[in-house]
């Protein structure tokens, strides 16, 4: 079994500010396994998803005007959302020994701005995506006008939520200001908006990681916000940034690989040998083709993509090496990287 349950991390555990190895549950380490196989990431993550879904649900009640809020809830509370931005933020925060209650509003906000970005990206004039994870995209269901307003509303709500919900007896105001700056920078004209612009500009089949970069930005932002909330040092924030960026990009590359594999397997039946990548390109709609032609996988193929993913895994882990003094608090961040790469072979 891939994940041992010998060392469990309860999501309700309050972690004292100074984590001494003596104060926590004793873990059994198997010297030949990588560090993260002792950590039950599945339990940790699913508990976190449940918590964040509840908070997001409470954050967007069905108030007047109902259709906007319905639309916001539709995109924010989408089924099967993995809440990766949340996990990165909360885990980065908990690395420094804080109680996650203080980080939850920011983590929620990250989900909101992320959702906002996706809603706008899926619009016909942008990526033109009819669906996401088998769910019709917002504009398919609510129309383009409402989708635009929904994106705008989710984005602003994120900022409001951080200010209104973060316990200021725990988190000083200057850290909140830094977090807000971080998110604003990430989504602005030199961050995501720039990425989205390049995404529109580039011809398909130009392999320049443009699409993947967007996810790197999100990961970077989430991890950095966790550190900023915790009052981490500038060095530590930098490490978290690089970690987050690597994980974000590699997560997306592996996503594309998994998609290419399943599509390829489907297409292979009854056909003579055709490359997986060709099949994938053939099967897509215009909008999806727009997307596919720009993914690293569709240009360089699955094997090369996985090489890149492994490289990013090492990079991410290297950054975590510099944070080893936080002991077991680092386990979630380690496990997150491994999950991002290995999940194709894991039965969830």
């Amino acid at each position, binding site marked *: 079994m891939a994940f041992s349950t010998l060392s469990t991390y309860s999501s309700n555990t309050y972690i004292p500010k100074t984590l001494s190895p003596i104060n926590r549950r004793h873990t059994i380490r198997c010297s030949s396994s990588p560090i993260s196989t002792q950590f039950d990431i599945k339990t940790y993550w699913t508990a976190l998803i449940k918590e964040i879904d509840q908070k997001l649900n409470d954050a967007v009640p069905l108030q007047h005007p109902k259709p*906007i809020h319905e639309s916001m809830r539709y995109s924010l509370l989408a089924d099967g959302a993995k809440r990766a931005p949340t996990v990165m933020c909360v885990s980065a925060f908990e690395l420094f020994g804080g109680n996650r209650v203080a980080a939850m509003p920011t983590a929620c906000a990250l989900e909101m701005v992320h959702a906002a970005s996706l809603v706008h990206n899926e619009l016909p004039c942008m990526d033109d995506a009819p669906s996401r994870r088998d769910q019709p995209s917002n504009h398919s269901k609510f129309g383009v006008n409402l989708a635009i307003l929904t994106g705008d509303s989710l984005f602003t709500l994120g900022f409001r939520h951080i200010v209104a919900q973060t316990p200021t007896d725990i988190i000083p105001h200057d850290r909140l200001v830094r977090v807000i700056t971080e998110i604003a920078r990430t989504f602005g004209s030199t961050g995501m908006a720039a990425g989205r612009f390049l995404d529109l500009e580039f011809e398909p089949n130009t392999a320049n990681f443009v699409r993947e970069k967007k996810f790197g930005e999100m990961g970077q932002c989430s991890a950095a916000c966790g550190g900023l909330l915790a009052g981490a040092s500038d060095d530590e924030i930098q490490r978290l940034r690089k970690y987050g960026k690597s994980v974000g990009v590699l997560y997306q590359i592996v996503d594309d690989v998994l998609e290419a594999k399943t599509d390829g397997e489907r297409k292979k039946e009854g056909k003579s040998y055709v490359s997986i990548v060709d099949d994938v390109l053939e099967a897509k709609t215009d909008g999806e083709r727009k997307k596919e032609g720009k993914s690293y996988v569709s240009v360089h193929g699955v094997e090369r993509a996985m090489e890149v993913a492994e490289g990013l895994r090492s990079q991410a882990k290297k950054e975590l090496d510099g944070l080893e003094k936080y002991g077991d608090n680092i386990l979630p961040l380690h496990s997150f990287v491994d999950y991002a790469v290995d999940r194709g072979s894991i039965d969830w």
Partner: protein
Amino acid sequence: MDDDPSRRGQPSNHTIFGVDMAILAGDALFPLGFRHIVSQTPPDLVPETRLLRVIAEIARAVGSTGMAAGQFLDLEGSTNAVDFVQEKKFGEMGQCSAVCGGLLAGASDDEIQQLRIYGQAVGVLYQVVDDILEAKVKKEENEEEKKKSKSYVSVYGVEKAMEVADELRSQAKKELEGLEKYGDKVLPLYSFLDYAADRGFSFTPPV
């Protein structure tokens, strides 16, 4: 949305840059606003607490219970909602601006409330007067009302709209009276109100 080819005589953003760029530009201007507040406000003059309140206020004004709500109802086009739409689309911006000024200055909650009501009233008043002036011009030129949005004038008629404008003016004035202790410093706010109502002068268009 409103499908405006131009604004104040200038072609709208999407007309020049395309719809996709226009969306990105809007998406980028939002966060720039927040970033600008944080990076440019002198920290020795304004404590962080007030910055956070300002950010929250702007986010609220623009969001799903503020301007976005107004936009949405405007698009729906129901005449019943015209008051709400005017309040949300134009009142919110006025309200927000006045309140932000007060928040930055560390005004009392009462004073913030007065500024809020003042700003709201001026915002809507400005728009109502705009509509009245436009209606008068249109009447003279015998043009057909083609605008998508419903205005006070198109729903209630010019006379009722003028009554509403008068009411708003009194409302705003009343709030300013409550701030009289600040002496001459209230004068710009009075003048602004008068301008919204009377348009006693016009700005020289750029050469």
